[in-house]
C-alpha cells in the first residue's frame, strides 16, 4: 500500500508538468520516475517469506518443472523436466528415495541380487494396476524393456541399459553368426572369458540360453559388417559360409519367471544396477493400449498410466494437470489431490510467479545469479544443496598443445576453483571427476586411498593437502619446463611462446557460461600471462564440435549423474568414444574400472574406483571447475519434498501443511529434521525390502 502511494505521489508531478508544455522537463521527470521505480524493488522491506505465502486450500501442488516435455512416453525422453513428470505418472520396479535417491521399493516390493551381482530377481506386488484397472504383471516389464530397446524407439537413454545381456546388440540391430548348428562365441574373438555360472532362481530354458557363453555379435548393416569382417582375418575365415541371424527382442536378458517374478541378467556385474532402474527408461508402459492406439497412446484421451497420479488435463506449453489416481495400489498414501506442472524456462518469470504465490516450488538452477543474494536470505525457502552434477573444461588431448600432459597440468593448477565458486555464489570447487558430498561412502574410500598414495610417495600431509589444487607458482614452473617460459614483468606475467591462437575456451551461448569463461580467462592471464580467446557457439553447433572433439583447447562441459554411484562420473573417460569429449582413451584406466566393477565387496570396489579416479585425474583430461548446487525454492507449507542430488521427487511423499506451526523452517537442516508422517511412510514402504536383506 505504501508503495502504491509512493507511485501516485511520484507520477502526480508528471501530469502537472504536462500542463506546463515543457517536453524536455517532462522527459527528465519521466527518467527520474523510472529510475526510482527500478531502484524501488531493492528498497522494499523484507518479510519473513518471499512474497505471498498462503497454503493452497484445495490440496494442490503447483510446480514449475522446466522446458515443455518432449513427450509423455517415458522411454523416449531422457530429460530431467520429463523425469519429474514420469515419476508422477509411471511407476517402475523401484523409485528414487526422496532424500538420497537410493532405490526404494515401488512396483517391486523386494529384490534379490545374485552372488556375481550380474543377475537380479524382482518380486512384484500382486495388487498393482494400470489406472484403467488392468493388473500389472511381470510380462508388462518384459514387454516394456523390449520396447524401450527396440530400434524403433528413439531413446537417448538406451545406453544406460546396455549392461543387460544383448540389449545393445538388439538396439543397434546387430546379428549373431550361426555356423552350422552352433553360434560363434564372443570369447573366441577377443571377448572376455565367461564367468562360471552360479544358479540363481529357477532354471528355465531362457535362463539356460542367457547363461550360455556370450555369442559374438556383428554389425547389422551389411557394408559396416563387411568392413568389420575384412579387418579381422580370423573372423573372416570363421564367417565363411555362416548365416547371420538378427538379434531379437526375445534375446535380451529379461524374463518373467511367473506373473509376479521378474529376472534380469546382465552381461557384466554392475552393483549400481538396481539404482539405475528408477530411471524413466526402465518404467513400464501399457502394452494393451499401445497395441490399440500405436504412437497415439500418449494422447491425453488415450493415455493409461500406473503411477500415483493420472492425467486430468494437458495443455502443451501451458500446464499439465494431474490428479490422484484412485487405482494406484498405494493410493491411501498419496497426499496431494492435484499436481500441476507448468512448463516454463524464463527464470525471472518463474521467480515472479513464485513471489506472487502462483506456484509453490520450482526446478533446480532457477534462481538468477542477480537474485541469489536476496533470495538466499529466505532461510525457510531457499534450498542450495550439493548436486550430482559437475562443470569442467574438457581439454582436447588429441591436438597440440594439450596432447602434452604437462600443459594440461599447468592450466589446471593455475585455476583457482575456490574463488570461481565464490564468484558463482551457489557452487563448490571441484578437483576430481566425482563430486564430493553426494556419495558419502565413496568420499571415505577416496580419503583412504589418497592417504595410502601419500604414504607410498612419502609426501608430507600439509603439502599433500594442496596437491592438484590451486598452485600458480608450480603451474608457471611446469609451463617453463615444457618449453613455454613464463616471464615476470613487475606484477604481471607473460608467456610469449605459448600458441594462444591454437587454443580457445569454447562454450555454448549463455550468460552463465560466459561469466565462467571470462573468470577463468582472467585467472590464466593473471597467473600464466596467457590470454586464451573465448568462443561462444549456439548449443547444437557447440555440441557437434565437442562430441567430435573438433574444438581447440578447452570446451565447457556439464555432467549430471544418471544414477547414484560414482561410476556414472568415472565412466566419462571410459572406452572410446566416450562422453568425456577430451579424446582421452587409456587402456590402463579402462582396466582399472572393469576390475573395480567386477569386485563384489562394495567397500573394496569403491577403493578400487577411487584409485582409478586418482590415476585418471593425474592424466588430467579436464580442468574440473565446480560441483553444482540445487539452487531452488519451495514454499514452507510444502512438505515431504527434499533437495536430493537430482531434484527428483517421489510425489506420493509430498503434502501441503495448512498449519503454519508445522511448516518447514531453516531448510538448511531439512535433511536431518524429523517429519513423523514422512518417516512412517518411508519406513512402511522400505520394510518389504529390508525383510529380504536381513
Amino acid at each position: 500500500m505504501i508503495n502504491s502511494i509512493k507511485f501516485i505521489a511520484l507520477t502526480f508531478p508528471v501530469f502537472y508538468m504536462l500542463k506546463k508544455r515543457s517536453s524536455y522537463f517532462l522527459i527528465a521527470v519521466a527518467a527520474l520516475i523510472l529510475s526510482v521505480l527500478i531502484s524501488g524493488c531493492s528498497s522494499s522491506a523484507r518479510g519473513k517469506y518471499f512474497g505471498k505465502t498462503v497454503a493452497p486450500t484445495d490440496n494442490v501442488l503447483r510446480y514449475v518443472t522446466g522446458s515443455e516435455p518432449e513427450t509423455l512416453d517415458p522411454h523416449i525422453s531422457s530429460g530431467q523436466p520429463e523425469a519429474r513428470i514420469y515419476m508422477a505418472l509411471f511407476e517402475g520396479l523401484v523409485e528414487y528415495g526422496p532424500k538420497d535417491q537410493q532405490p526404494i521399493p515401488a512396483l517391486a516390493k523386494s529384490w534379490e541380487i545374485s552372488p556375481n551381482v550380474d543377475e537380479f530377481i524382482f518380486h512384484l506386488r500382486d495388487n498393482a494396476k494400470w489406472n484403467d484397472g488392468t493388473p500389472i504383471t511381470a510380462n508388462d516389464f518384459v514387454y516394456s524393456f523390449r520396447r524401450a530397446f527396440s530400434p524403433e524407439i528413439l531413446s537417448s537413454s538406451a545406453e544406460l541399459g546396455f549392461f543387460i545381456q544383448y540389449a545393445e546388440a538388439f538396439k543397434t540391430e546387430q546379428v549373431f553368426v550361426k555356423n552350422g548348428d552352433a553360434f560363434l562365441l564372443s570369447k573366441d574373438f577377443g571377448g572376455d572369458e565367461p564367468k562360471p555360472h552360479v544358479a540363481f532362481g529357477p532354471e528355465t530354458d531362457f535362463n539356460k540360453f542367457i547363461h550360455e557363453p556370450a555369442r559374438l555379435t556383428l554389425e547389422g548393416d551389411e557394408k559396416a559388417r563387411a568392413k568389420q569382417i575384412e579387418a579381422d582375418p580370423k573372423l573372416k575365415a570363421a564367417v565363411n559360409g555362416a548365416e547371420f541371424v538378427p538379434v531379437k527382442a526375445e534375446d535380451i536378458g529379461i524374463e518373467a519367471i511367473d506373473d509376479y517374478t521378474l529376472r534380469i541378467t546382465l552381461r557384466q556385474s554392475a552393483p549400481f544396477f538396481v539404482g539405475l532402474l528408477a530411471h524413466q527408461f526402465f518404467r513400464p508402459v501399457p502394452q494393451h493400449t499401445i497395441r490399440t492406439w500405436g504412437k497415439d497412446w500418449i494422447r491425453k484421451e488415450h493415455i493409461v498410466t500406473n503411477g500415483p497420479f493420472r492425467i486430468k488435463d494437458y495443455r502443451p506449453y501451458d500446464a499439465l494437470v494431474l490428479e490422484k489416481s484412485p487405482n494406484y495400489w498405494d493410493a491411501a498414501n498419496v497426499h496431494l489431490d492435484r499436481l500441476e506442472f507448468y512448463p516454463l524456462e524464463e527464470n525471472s518469470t518463474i521467480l515472479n510467479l513464485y513471489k506472487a504465490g502462483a506456484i509453490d516450488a520450482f526446478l533446480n538452477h532457477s534462481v538468477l545469479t542477480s537474485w541469489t543474494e536476496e533470495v538466499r536470505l529466505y532461510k525457510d525457502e531457499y534450498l542450495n544443496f550439493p548436486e550430482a552434477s559437475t562443470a569442467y573444461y574438457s581439454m582436447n588431448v588429441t591436438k597440440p598443445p594439450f596432447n602434452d600432459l604437462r600443459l594440461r597440468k599447468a592450466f589446471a593448477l593455475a585455476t583457482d576453483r575456490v574463488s570461481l565458486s565464490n564468484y558463482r555464489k551457489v557452487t563448490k570447487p571441484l578437483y576430481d571427476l566425482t563430486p564430493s558430498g553426494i556419495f558419502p561412502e565413496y568420499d571415505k574410500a577416496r580419503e583412504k586411498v589418497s592417504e595410502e598414495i601419500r604414504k607410498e610417495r612419502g609426501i608430507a600431509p600439509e603439502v599433500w593437502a594442496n596437491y592438484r589444487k590451486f598452485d600458480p607458482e608450480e603451474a608457471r614452473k611446469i609451463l617453463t619446463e615444457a618449453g613455454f617460459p613464463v616471464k615476470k614483468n613487475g606484477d604481471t606475467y607473460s608467456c610469449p611462446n605459448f600458441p594462444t591462437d591454437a587454443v580457445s575456451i569454447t562454450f555454448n551461448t549463455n550468460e552463465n557460461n560466459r561469466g565462467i569463461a571470462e573468470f577463468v580467462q582472467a585467472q590464466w592471464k593473471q597467473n600464466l600471462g596467457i590470454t586464451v580467446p573465448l568462443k561462444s557457439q549456439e548449443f547444437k553447433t557447440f555440441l557437434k564440435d565437442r562430441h567430435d572433439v573438433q574444438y581447440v583447447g578447452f570446451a565447457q562441459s556439464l555432467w549430471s549423474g544418471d544414477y547414484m554411484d560414482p561410476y556414472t562420473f568415472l565412466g566419462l573417460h571410459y572406452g572410446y568414444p566416450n562422453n568425456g569429449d577430451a579424446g582421452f582413451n587409456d587402456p590402463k584406466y579402462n582396466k582399472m574400472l572393469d576390475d573395480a566393477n567386477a569386485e563384489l565387496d562394495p567397500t573394496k570396489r569403491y577403493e578400487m574406483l577411487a584409485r582409478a579416479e586418482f590415476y585418471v585425474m593425474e592424466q588430467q583430461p579436464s580442468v574440473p571447475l565446480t560441483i553444482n548446487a540445487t539452487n531452488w525454492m519451495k514454499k514452507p507449507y510444502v512438505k515431504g519434498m527434499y533437495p536430493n542430488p537430482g531434484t527428483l521427487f517421489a510425489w506420493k511423499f509430498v503434502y501441503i501443511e495448512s498449519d503454519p506451526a508445522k511448516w518447514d523452517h531453516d531448510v538448511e537442516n531439512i535433511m536431518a529434521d524429523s517429519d513423523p508422517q514422512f518417516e512412517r511412510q518411508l519406513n512402511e514402504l522400505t520394510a518389504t525390502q529390508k525383510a529380504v536383506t536381513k
Partner: protein
Amino acid sequence: MFSFILRRLLMIIPMALVVVTLTWGLVRIAPGNFYSGEKKLPAGVEATIRKKYGLDQPWYTQYGMMMSNIVRGDFGDSLKYQGQSVNEIIRRHLPYSATIGILGYLLALTLGLTAGTIAALRQNSWFDYGSMSLAMFGLSVPNFVLGPILVLIFSFWLYLLPSARLGGPLSLILPVVTLAAIYTAYIARLTRAGMLEVMRSDYIRTARAKGLDERSVLLRHAIRGGIIPVVSFTGPALAALLAGTVVVEKVFAIPGLGNIFIQSVLNRDEPLILGIVAFLSILIMVFNLIVDISYGFLDPRIRYE
C-alpha cells in the same frame, strides 16, 4: 482488379515453396541434429536413428520426400515433440498468439491513430510534443524492460494483475499493453507524419473551399489519405504479431507460436521449422495483398493493372 488478385494469389504458392526450400537448405547447413544432446549417442544408436528418419539417403531424395509431403499440405510430425503433427501444433498455439497480437494491435491502432491525428492537427502544441515524446519513449524502451516494470507495478506493488500465465481476461492486460506500446508509438508517429502531409495537400484545400466543415474534411477526406502509411505498416506487422512475439510470450509465459518457432530452430526440429516458416510466409503475403487492395479504397488515385 479481379485478375490482379488472382495473379497475386497464384504467386503465393510458388513463393512459399521457394521460401521453404531456402529454409530447408539453411537448416541442413546448420551443424547439429535434432537428436544431439549433452550426452553423446553410441554410434550404433545414432546409425539406427539416421536410418529411421531417412537421413542416410542422398540429399535430393530427402528433399524430394519433404517437398512431396509439403505440397500435399502435410508437414509431418515434429521430431522433438514426438507424436504431435506440425499442423496440430500450429493450430493449437496460433489462437494464443493471435489473441494477444490482435488485441495488442487494436489497442495500438486506437491509441496511435487518435494521438497521431490530434498531434498533427495541433502541430507544435503541448499535446503534440507530449505525445511524440512519449512515442519516442515507447519506441526506445524494449518490451523485455517494459514487461517486467509493468509486472513490478501492477502485480507486486498494486496487486491488481497476475504476473504471468494466461487465465481470465485480467491476465491479458499486461501482455497486451506491453506488446501494444511499441506499435502505438510507431503508429502515432506514422499517422502524424501522414496527416501533416495530407492536410497540406490540394484536395484538402479544395474540400475546404467547397465549404465543407472541418469535421467532414477530416473524417471523409483527410483520414483516408493520412493513414496510408499506417496501412502499409499494418500488413507485415499484423502477420508478425499473429505468429507470436517471443519476448512477450517468454515474460508472461504465454503458449504462443513465437516461442515455439524459436525453440524449433534451436532443436533443429526440421518439420516444425518448415511448417511455421511456410505458414508465416503465406500469412505475410496474404496480408500484403490485403494491404495492396485496401490502397484502392483509401486513395482513388491508385489503380490496379
